[in-house]
C-alpha cells in the first residue's frame, strides 16, 4: 500500500506540469497583443511595453514558461492587472467561502443521494425506482444557475423564508477569523451568528448539490444492484437474515466503494459550478471573484484561479484513489 501511495503520488507530477503548460498558454490565447488588450483604453506604446516587460512577454516562449513555473512553485500566481494585488493571497482569502459551500453541497448530496440510490435498487422496477431514475436525469440536466434563481425567487422573494445573497446579514457585528464562517461562529459560541450563517448557506448549497446528488443516486443504485446479485448476498438471505440487515450490513459497505470515486470526481464540477452558483447568490468565494475578474478583463486572476482549482482537482482525485485503495482490502496494488 505504501509503495502504491508513493507511486501514485509521483504520477501526479507530469499531470500537474501539463496543467501548468495549459494554464500558461491561456495568456497566449488572447488575440492580438496581450499587453494592449489588458490595458484596454489606457494603452499607450510605453505602457504596453512596460506591461510586456513585467509579464516577461518580450522573452522567448520557453523562457517565459520556465519563469512562470518558477514563480508558481514559489507560490507566486501573478499580480492582478486591475488592482495590482498578488493573486494567491486573494485566492486564499476567498477560498474558505467556496469550500464551505462545496462541502455543504456534497454532504447534502450524499445524505439524499445514497438513500435514494439504495431504495431505488432494493425496490427495482417499482414506481419509486422509476421516479428516482427520471429525477436523477432531471438533476443532471438542470442548469444550476436557473435552479438557483428559481430557489431564490420562491424561498427568498415569494415566501421570504431564506436570504438570497451573501454569507451573513449586512451590518452584522460578527468578525470571522479563519473565514470559515460556520467554524468561526462555533468556536466563538456565537449561536445567533451561526443560525444566520446557516440560513444564508441553505439556498446556494441546495442549488450546487443538485448535480452531485443525481450522480451519486445513480451510482449508488447501479453499484447496489450489482452487489445485491452476488453470491454472498444470496447466502445471507438464505440464512434467513432480514432484508434490512442484508442491505445495510452486508451490501451497503461494498456498494459504497464506487460511490467514493464519484465523490472525488464531483469536486471538479462543484468548483466549476461554484462560479455560477456564487454569481447568483452573491457568495464571496473564488467563483464570484472569477466572474467579476472576467468582466474586468483581469486575466491574471482568471489564470491564477484556474490553475489553483485545477491543482486541487488533480490532488483530490489522487487522494480519492489512495483512499479507495486503503478502504478496499481486496485491491492489491503492489
Amino acid at each position: 500500500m505504501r509503495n502504491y501511495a508513493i507511486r501514485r503520488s509521483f504520477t501526479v507530477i507530469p499531470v500537474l506540469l501539463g496543467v501548468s503548460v495549459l494554464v500558461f498558454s491561456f495568456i497566449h490565447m488572447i488575440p492580438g497583443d496581450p499587453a494592449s488588450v489588458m490595458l484596454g483604453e489606457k494603452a499607450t506604446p510605453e505602457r504596453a511595453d512596460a506591461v510586456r516587460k513585467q509579464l516577461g512577454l518580450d522573452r522567448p516562449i520557453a523562457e517565459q514558461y520556465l519563469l512562470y513555473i518558477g514563480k508558481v512553485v514559489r507560490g507566486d500566481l501573478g499580480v492582478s492587472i486591475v488592482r495590482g494585488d498578488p493573486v494567491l493571497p486573494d485566492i486564499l482569502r476567498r477560498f474558505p467561502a467556496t469550500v464551505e459551500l462545496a462541502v455543504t453541497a456534497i454532504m447534502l448530496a450524499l445524505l439524499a443521494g445514497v438513500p435514494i440510490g439504495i431504495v431505488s435498487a432494493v425496490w427495482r422496477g417499482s414506481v419509486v425506482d422509476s421516479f428516482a431514475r427520471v429525477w436523477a436525469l432531471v438533476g443532471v440536466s438542470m442548469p444550476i444557475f436557473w435552479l438557483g434563481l428559481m430557489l431564490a425567487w420562491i424561498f427568498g422573494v415569494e415566501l421570504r423564508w431564506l436570504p438570497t445573497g451573501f454569507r451573513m446579514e449586512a451590518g452584522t457585528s460578527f468578525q470571522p477569523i479563519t473565514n470559515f464562517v460556520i467554524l468561526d461562529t462555533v468556536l466563538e459560541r456565537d449561536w445567533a451568528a451561526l443560525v444566520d450563517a446557516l440560513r444564508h448557506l441553505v439556498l446556494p448549497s441546495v442549488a450546487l448539490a443538485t448535480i452531485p446528488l443525481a450522480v451519486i443516486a445513480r451510482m449508488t443504485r447501479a453499484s447496489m444492484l450489482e452487489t445485491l446479485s452476488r453470491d454472498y448476498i444470496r447466502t445471507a438471505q438464505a440464512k434467513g437474515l432480514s432484508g434490512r440487515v442484508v442491505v445495510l450490513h452486508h451490501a451497503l459497505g461494498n456498494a459504497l466503494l464506487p460511490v467514493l470515486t464519484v465523490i472525488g470526481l464531483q469536486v471538479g464540477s462543484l468548483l466549476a459550478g461554484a462560479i455560477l452558483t456564487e454569481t447568483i447568490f452573491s457568495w464571496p468565494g473564488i467563483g464570484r471573484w472569477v466572474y467579476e475578474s472576467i468582466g474586468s478583463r483581469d486575466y491574471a486572476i482568471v489564470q491564477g484561479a484556474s490553475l489553483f482549482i485545477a491543482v486541487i482537482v488533480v490532488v483530490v482525485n489522487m487522494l480519492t484513489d489512495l483512499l479507495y485503495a486503503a478502504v478496499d482490502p481486496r485491491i492489491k496494488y503492489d
Partner: protein
Amino acid sequence: MGSATSVAAAIEPVVFPAAPGQSPAAAAWRRLIASPVARAGLAMACGFLLMAVVTPAVHRYDAGTDSDLGSRLRSPSREHPFGTDSLGRDILVRVLHGARVSLGLGVSSVAVAACLGSGLGLVAGYVGRRTDLVLMFCMDILLAFPGTLLAIAIVAMIGPGLRNSLLAISIVAIPVYARISRAAVLELRHLEFVTAARCLGGGDGRLLLRHILPNSLPPLIVQTTLAIAFAILETAALGFLGLGAQPPTAEWGAMLADSYKYFTSGAWWVFFFPGAAIMLSVLGFNLLGDGLRDALDPRLRSN
C-alpha cells in the same frame, strides 16, 4: 479485391443479436422504441430540433428592433403567453428563436469534437507506442480540468462571442471522444475479422475506416447524444456569464443573464421560460442518450 471485401465483410462479427432478417440497426431501434423513457427523450429532442429548424423558416425575427418599451415586464397573457422582458420583447418569440442558437451551437460543437476527438482516438489506438502516449497524455491534461471551468477560461481569454464559445465547448468535449474511440480500437484491432481483413491486403486506412470505425460506433453514438446535452448546458452557462451570445441575440443563457436581476421584483416569467427551455432540451437529449445506451449495448441492459 472485390472478393476480398466480401470475405472480410462476411466474417465481421454481429455486434447486436438480431432476429433473422433484421439488421442490427433495426433491432437497436426496436429496443429503443420499446422503452417509454427513451421514447419521451426522442420526442423531446426531436421537438426542440424541429423548433430550431422551423422557427426561423416561418417567422422572421430581428432582435435589434424588437424592443417595445411601452410594454415592459408584462406578465403572461393571451397576447404574450410567456410575458414580456425588461425591454418589452415577447419572451415566447425569443425562446422559440433561442432554440436555433442554443441547439445549433450544441450540435455543431459536438460535431467538431466528435470528428476531431474520435479521429485522434482512432489514430492513438491504432498506431500505439509513442503517438498513443503523447496524444493520450494531452487528453488527460484536458480531462484534469473541470469542463465548465476550462470552457469559461478559454472564452475569457479569446474573447466572448458565439464562435469562440463553439471553439471552447468543442475543445472540452474532445478528450472523451478520443478515449472512447481509442478503447474501441484497442478492443477491436486484434479480433479475427480485422486480422482477416489485413491478411486479405487491406491497408491501414481501409482497416480503420471500413472495419474498426463502424464497429466502434455504438459507444460514440451514445456519447454524442449525451455530449449534445452537456454542450447545450455549457452554451447556456457561457451565455449566462456574458461570455457566449451577446445581447440582443435571443439565446437562452443570455436571456437569463438579462433578466436575473428581476427576480426580486417577482417578474418570474422573464427567467422561468428560458431556463425551462434549457432544462427540457438537455433532459430530452439525456433521456435519449440513456435509452440509446440500453438499446445499443445489450451487455449493459441488465442494469
